[in-house]
Structures are given as C-alpha cells and as structure tokens.
C-alpha cells in the first residue's frame, strides 16, 4: 500500500492509469463473488492498464450502504464506476452525483429505471442479461412434458428486489404458457435455510406439489434438501437460477432439473472494458444484452 501511494502522488500518474471502482451487491453471495473474482483476474492480466477497487454491501437490500459506497468512490477519486445496483431507482441520484463529478458510470446486472435516468438527464449504458428471459427459459424447460394439472410453487427472493421481480415474472409467464397453476408464491429471502423451511411447510399444505421454481440456486438447494427429507412418493421438479458450483452435484443426481447461467464472471469484465473504452474515448456507449445459458445435467 505504501508504495502505491508514493507512486500515484502526482496527478499525472493517476490519470495515466485509471482507477475503476466495481460496486457490487452482497460480496457474501457466490454469484457476486464470482463476478468480483472475474474482474480481479482480468485486472491481474491487464495490470498496466488500470487499477481496480472492488466493494460490496453487507446485505443485498441495504440501499443506503450502496449509496454510501458510491459517494465514497467519488471521494476516492476513481475515473469510472461499474455498478450492479441494489435498487433500480434509489441509486440514480447518487450516480448522477458521480457523473456530475466527471466519472464514467456503467450499469451491469440490474438495469436502472429509464424514466428516472431521464428525469436526471443521464445516459448510463446497461450491460447485462435479462433476468426475466432467463427465468422464462428455465421455466419453460422444466415445465415441458409435465401434466397440465401440475401444481407449481414459486420461491422468490426479497420481494422488492428488481431481480426477484424479474425472475418471478419470467417464471409466471412460463407457468401461464404451460397452462398450469401457481399454488403458492412466497419469499425465501434468497436464503437456503428459509427456503428449506418454507418448502417443508408448502409440502405439507400441498402434498401433491410437482414443481418448485426457485429464484436462485441457494433456494433451490434448500428446496431440494427439504424434498429429500419429506419422504414423498412422487418426484418434485426443481429449478434454480445462477449456476453456482454447489448446484452441480444436484443437477447430476437429478434432484434439481435445471438452472441458468448468466456468465457473471464476464459480466463485470464487460463492464470494465466498456468503462475503459469510455474513459479513453470520452463518449457514451450503447446498452448491450449479455447471453444466458440453460444448464442441465446434460450440459455439465
């Protein structure tokens, strides 16, 4: 640390080597950890091009803390902020402050609401997948071939979170298209234990339940363990989202039918590359949607 500070004591140096801040949601969540790891690996390879500062919030729903982080990044003099906003509206004013301070802002993962961007007269490019399409993709896959009268339960994340709403909507579209019924929709707060407890209760209320669509893999894991413990006489099909490594054994064993990969590792890297370009060129870039891939036992 001491060397760095003497290095970059002159403004010229700092300008020559831009500092990019990656502001994440919970760094305790595997998906974002992977994203951060991808970014750090990229920086290690391109160390001569830029410096990277990675920060996340303690708790995915703590908006104030993320706003804080943005302010702190502004004050630590970064050239660009690549952000996965915890909320699509509340982060806009803070990012407006960043833009006003001459910082390039790139939006990844969770799209900022266009209306509010307009109100602030901002153009912030978005790079990321469509959570809704991803949910629809995995939903379509697991529901195909099941009877029309199948009972479906949806475990959503924190109900107010943008991703959670998007994924829930995608799931609901898939269920509607398959002409099935959502018997219950409850929030497992993205949490494995909570999802397991919810699933146990749902299974005693709806003993004939056929499908559980979980808005992330942690909740899918929880649901799978609850199903294993419930001693059922029929199979329950489970879908997840995110493709974390712990889900692979369950995919192989067939306990979980499918999940979706959004290539989180590359997501941040895309964002950083965009940011570098924008810093160099001084122009604002277009939005870009990143790919999604359905993961099943076969594709492992």
């Amino acid at each position, binding site marked *: 640390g001491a060397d760095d500070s003497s290095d970059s004591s002159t403004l010229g140096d700092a300008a020559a080597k831009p500092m990019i801040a990656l502001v994440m949601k919970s760094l305790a969540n*595997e998906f974002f950890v992977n994203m951060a790891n991808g970014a750090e690996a990229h920086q290690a390879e391109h160390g001569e091009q830029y410096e990277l500062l990675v920060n996340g919030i303690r708790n995915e729903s703590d908006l104030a803390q993320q706003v804080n982080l943005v302010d702190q990044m502004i004050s630590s003099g970064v050239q660009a902020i690549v952000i996965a906003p915890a909320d699509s509206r509340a982060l806009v004013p803070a990012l407006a402050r960043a833009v006003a301070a001459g910082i390039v802002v790139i939006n990844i993962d969770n799209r900022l609401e266009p209306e509010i961007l307009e109100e602030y007269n901002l153009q912030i490019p978005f790079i990321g997948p469509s959570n809704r399409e991803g949910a629809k993709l995995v939903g379509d896959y697991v529901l195909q071939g099941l009877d029309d009268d199948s009972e479906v339960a949806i475990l959503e994340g924190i109900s107010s979170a943008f991703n959670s709403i998007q994924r829930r909507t995608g799931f609901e579209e898939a269920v509607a298209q398959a002409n099935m019924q959502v018997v219950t929709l409850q929030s497992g707060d993205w949490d494995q234990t909570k999802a397991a407890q919810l699933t146990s209760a749902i299974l005693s209320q709806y003993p004939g339940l056929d499908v559980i669509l979980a808005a992330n893999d942690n909740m899918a*894991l*929880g649901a799978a363990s609850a199903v294993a413990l419930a001693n059922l006489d029929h199979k329950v099909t489970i879908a997840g989202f995110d493709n974390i*490594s712990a889900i692979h054994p369950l995919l192989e064993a067939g306990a979980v039918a499918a999940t979706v990969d959004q290539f989180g590792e590359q997501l941040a890297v895309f964002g950083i590359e965009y940011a570098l370009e924008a810093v160099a060129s001084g122009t604002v870039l277009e939005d870009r949607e990143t790919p999604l891939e359905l993961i099943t036992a076969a594709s492992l």
Partner: protein
Amino acid sequence: MLSKLSLLFEEIFIVIALLLLILFFGLMTENFFTTGTLRAILTQLPALTVVTIGMTLVLISGGIDLSVGSVVALSAGVIGVAFTVFGLPLPVAGLLGILAGGCAGLVNGVLGSYFRLPVFIVTLGMLEAARGMAYLVTDSQTVYIGASIQALSLPISGIGVSASFLISLGLVVLAQYVLTRTVYGRYLIAIGTNEQAAKISGIRTEPYLMWVLVVSGLLAGLGGLMNAAYLAASDPNAATGLELSAIAAAVIGGTSLMGGRGSIVGAFIGVLIISVLQNGLAQMGVSEPVKRLITGLVIILAVLIDRWRSRYA
C-alpha cells in the same frame, strides 16, 4: 410432587399460548393437522433448539450471546470444507465444526469474563468476526456436502424422529436437569442474580461466566452441524438473525434478560411456538408483510399471556 405440579403450572400459560396457536392454524389451513406438518416441524427444530439452550444459559448467567447465528454459519462452513475439500470423514468434520464453535465461545468467554468487557459488545464483535471467518473458510460459496450428512436429519426407522431431534431433546432434558438439580446450575442462577453476593458466597464467578459462553459456542457449533445436515450443504449466509429468534424463544419461555431467572423447558416451548408460527404462516401462504405483522403480534401476545403467570402463580 407438589413442587413438580407447580413447575408445570409455571409453564402452563405458555403451553396454552402454544395450543391456541396450533388451534388457530388448524382452523385457518386445510392440512395443518397432518403427519407432514409434524414432520416438517420436527426436522427444522433441532438447530434452533440447541442454540436456544445455550442462549438461555447465558441469559440466566446475566449475559447475552449475539454471535450464535454467525457461529452456526462458521461451524457449518468448517464442516463442509473439512469434508469436501480435505476429505475428512464426516464424524471428524462434524467434531471440527463443533470445536470451531467452542473456540468462538472461548474468545467470547475470556474477553467477557476475565477481561470484563461487556458481553453484549464482545459477542457483537464476534457476530461480525465469525461471519467473516465463515466467508473465509467457504470462500463465500455454498458448499454442497451431499446426502450422507442428511442421515442426521432423516427419521430413524422404527422411531419416526431424526437423530438431530433426539439429540436436541436430550440436551433440553440434560440442561434443565443441570440448571435445576445441580450445583453448577444453582451457581449460574446465583451469579446471574447478584454477582457480588455470589463471590462473597465463595463462588468463583469468572470460570462460570466463561464456561457458559463456551457452552453456548459449542451448542451453536452443534447447531451448525444440524443446519448442514438439514440442508445437505453449508451456507455461509445461514442463520443470519438467529440470535434474535433464540432470545425471543428464551424470553417467551420465561427467561429474564436481567439474569438469574429462566427455564430450559420453557425456552423449548418458546422454540416450538416460533416453529409452529413459521410453519403455519408458510402453509397459509400469506404475503410477507402479513407474515411479519403476525409474527410481531404473536411474540407480544405470548409474553402478555406469560405475564398472567406472575400475577396468578
């Protein structure tokens, strides 16, 4: 005989609260009175139960342990990594997890007892630190352990309940026995009531105040094992906020936050109330806001009912 009856009487109001709750859910949902529900409740009880036992003991000694939730996650993480990464046999991995909990408890205990720091703050620090360590050992990733560990959570054939459940029940009985029938328990109560008077009565208070936090740590470690067995995985984010549930269960069961008064059996009934509540609300499938509102009301109602105890007993 008489003393046993009056003991029952002490818990009677809280048992009534539990029965009312069960009745309520029985009326509100279709399938509440089924073996499925019973089974669901019995499989999820053990972890909260063992953690609550430790918490109750700590509260009786006049302290508090805010770190239990993080310690559960740490222990689960240690177990997952020991088993999958280092390939240790499950019993060894499980033991390591429990010991990790014990170490966290030891740090709490030494700082709180011998350094005389406020336990609230020490364990609040440990809440952060143990969670950080849980992330470190698991590399912030959920570790899938596999079905083998679920044996602990699966009903033993012939008995119909799981090993986890039997262990937690055994610990309830043991802890209640120690608390009410042994010198250690009596000393704990004395220390929680008036530490200075306990010292003058010849009780070495420091070791007791230390050990009760170590026990709480060990039990949280065991809770981590049970949580991992329940999930067949270890989740570094597990058990966030568990400390508040454990305290609520203890207090609903008649434990005083001022120290010196409490009952393990009461706390267990508190755990039952919380589990029935969670399960019932999930079966009703009401929305999250309504769940929160009802949970809040039930917590307050339970102590309101318990208040009658002090009036009529």
